[in-house]
């Protein structure tokens, strides 16, 4: 097999490489170049071609001076912090439960996975209904089943909406993360836990000293996926709150920049996108190198 691939490496890889270059690499490079120009979507300010329209770092300076961008930046980081912790705790807890329940484990996994198949916009509108009608009117209003003001009108407050988004996103993501965690948990040999139990380690000690270190490869992947997806959250943000009450996140801020300005400032939007890219790349690279260092080989 190896020889087959080695011989035909170039023809086999070529279609993917061409696609990658055309659809991702070239637009990316053009995007970076445009972020240094006065690009307006259909023309360049100051000339026919982009090299006549260079503005240096003006777009980047402008991005950091835009209050909406800074607000979105902070809100995105707050959301990511909360969401990554919640998603990981919930999915790890559920996958441990599912692993201990040997019977019907795959049925549960399938059910938990279903929300992940729905598109972000559809999910956002479904949860808008849940927050606005089920939560605010039926369950937690003053006339409802139990009165919990904190769970009413969650989309109408900056902080509450953050948790509303976290709930929505946890519901969507947990199924996917469970699959990774259960695979990881199944790979931990029961010899280890049994030996520890005989030595007198209680459940918490076994979890802390055996499960967590052995699960590190899974943590690496799950943290990477949740971190990057939380930063990139867009559809759910648009559908659930549309950025009202200061809930605009970075991806949506980039999308809306061209509508906030006339003529549409695509150069500024592109500069924000490059900042966004650098932010995600730096954060995820640090995370991957930190967590993969803690992985233990058995």
């Amino acid at each position, binding site marked *: 097999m190896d020889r087959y691939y080695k011989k035909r490496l170039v023809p086999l890889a070529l279609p993917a490489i061409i696609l990658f270059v055309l*659809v*991702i*690499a*070239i*637009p*990316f490079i*053009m*995007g970076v170049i*445009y972020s240094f120009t006065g*690009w*307006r*979507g*259909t*023309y360049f*300010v100051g000339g*026919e*071609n*982009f090299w006549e329209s260079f503005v240096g770092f003006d777009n980047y300076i402008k991005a950091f001076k835009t209050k909406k961008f800074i607000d979105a930046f902070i809100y995105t980081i707050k959301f990511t912090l909360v969401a990554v912790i919640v998603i990981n705790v919930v999915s790890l807890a559920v996958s441990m439960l599912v692993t201990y329940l040997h019977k019907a484990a795959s049925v549960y996994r399938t059910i938990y996975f279903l929300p992940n198949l729905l598109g972000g916009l559809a999910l956002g509108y479904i949860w*808008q*209904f849940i927050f*606005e*009608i089920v939560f*605010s009117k039926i369950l937690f209003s003053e006339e409802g089943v139990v009165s919990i003001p904190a769970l*009413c*009108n969650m*989309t*109408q407050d900056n902080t509450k909406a953050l948790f509303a988004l976290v709930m929505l996103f946890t519901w969507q993501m947990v199924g996917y993360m469970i699959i990774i965690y259960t695979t990881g948990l199944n790979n931990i040999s029961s010899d280890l836990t049994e030996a520890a139990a005989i030595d007198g380690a209680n459940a918490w000690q076994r979890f802390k000293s055996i499960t967590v270190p052995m699960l590190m490869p899974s943590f*690496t992947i799950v943290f*990477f996926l949740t971190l*990057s997806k939380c930063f*990139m959250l*867009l559809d759910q943000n648009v559908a659930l709150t549309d950025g*009202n*009450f200061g809930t605009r996140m970075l*991806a949506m801020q*980039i*999308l809306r920049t*061209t*509508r*906030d*300005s*006339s*003529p*549409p400032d*695509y150069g500024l*939007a*592109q500069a*924000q*996108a*490059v900042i*966004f*890219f650098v932010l*995600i*790349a730096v954060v*995820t*690279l640090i995370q*991957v*190198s930190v967590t*993969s260092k803690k992985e233990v080989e058995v």
Partner: protein
Amino acid sequence: MKKKALYMILVGVLALGMLTGCGGSGSNSDSSPDSKAEEAGSDKDYDLYIFNTKGENADAMEAAANAFGAEKGVKVKVFSLGSGTNSDDTLRTEMNSNNKPAIFSCMNAQALVEWVEGGFAMDLSTAGNEEFKELVSEIPESFHLTDGNANYGVPYNVEGYGYIVDTEMIAALFGEDNVDAFIDAFKMATYDEFESAVTTLQAYIKEDTAGTVTLSGQEFQLAAQKTGKAANLEGVFSVAGSEKWTYGDHFVNIAVDAIFKDSKAASEATKEELEAGKGAFMAYAKALDLKTSNATTARGPELINATTNGYDPAVATFAGGKAIFMKQGNWAYENIKKANEDIADTLTFLPIKMPFTQEDIQAEGLTVDHMLESIPVFVPNYYCINDKVSDEEKALAQEFLVWLNTTEEGQRFVIEEMAFIPYNADPATTSAGYSLGDSIISYIAEEKTLTNAYAGAPVGWATDTFGLHMMENFVNTAEWPDTAYEDIADFTISSWAEMAGLE
């Protein structure tokens, strides 16, 4: 080490994907110079390309273009987007291609900047076609699409808005014989009369107290029992509370109209002019207070709930006879008809009233009475000619606009198929063919119209800044502080001034 390299690639690829997915909307461009594009233009399979922004009249526009093409022996290509879709990005993509549209659309002077700066919009005074020149010269000045120097647009049509009311609802409330008298009296009534009428009606709806409404001195007795169409009433106004434009765009425009004579004047606003308009903005706040206090849904978090108080639910509330008034324009006609066909033929517009004093009105020549009795009538969209297409196609584009706006057949398509009110319509002889359209024509005939001055406010101010602020800080709270009117007026001025860069 190998593993690490793999992760690095993984991170890199995913992150790259993100960036191009989110920010790359400008990257599908074709950077070949325009001169080259025209030389290579032989691959186009049409003689005239029209980019139509209004999805609602896609079929009608296609039919009109075909009729024109058959008459002149040319092939016309029409591109329309689905209704309600934002066409900006698609139009920009088309403008970047080799086959650019010859006729495209532009909403207002704010959107025009992009097309003038990019060299796309053609100054209509440079047109070669004599008939077209005449058509352009006959466009009333208030309907010009201008950057201050030249006129760039031929209006699509005119639209208007106000409080929509079902005349049969008035009949159920005040008796069949009093409908016309009530409508006339309402149009002339002062704000104080309007305010007490709203209070009386709300009490009638909530507590069954059949009182008397006084409008321009005439008394109208409410029916003792809520019967017929009035039986389901839940409030005086149906308010689309979760939509930011409900407070920001057309409603605040009434106050902006009192300060600036048109959108051009508004776009040149100075800080002093805005501050002088404080009284008008306070009048806006009072009128909004009255409206949201007497809506079918009580003011508070529930009023801005998107599931129960969005645009569609608000139309359904009004069409279902649960409210007497709804602020909307004639463009909502089809939606109202879809929600309840029975009321479609008996709808009419009443003016939106705000408590202006003559000192509040800064716009020259306007009086308190005119403000109370008029509805805004404005051009929602313009046809522009693309300066970057070939001269032959530009000439054809002019011919088409002349044909559409002056010939009998063209006008038939505009009025009957597109259900438009032509901007050059003679109110004495034109019929829109539906209730709300005819109501607008009657206001035009009586010269009781206002302009669309808010379109001159800074980009993104009306909906996303001012409308959002109102929704997040006032409409979501039942009790307004004593300083609310003052606060709203101050925010209006400061946010506008800040976004316009005035100091």
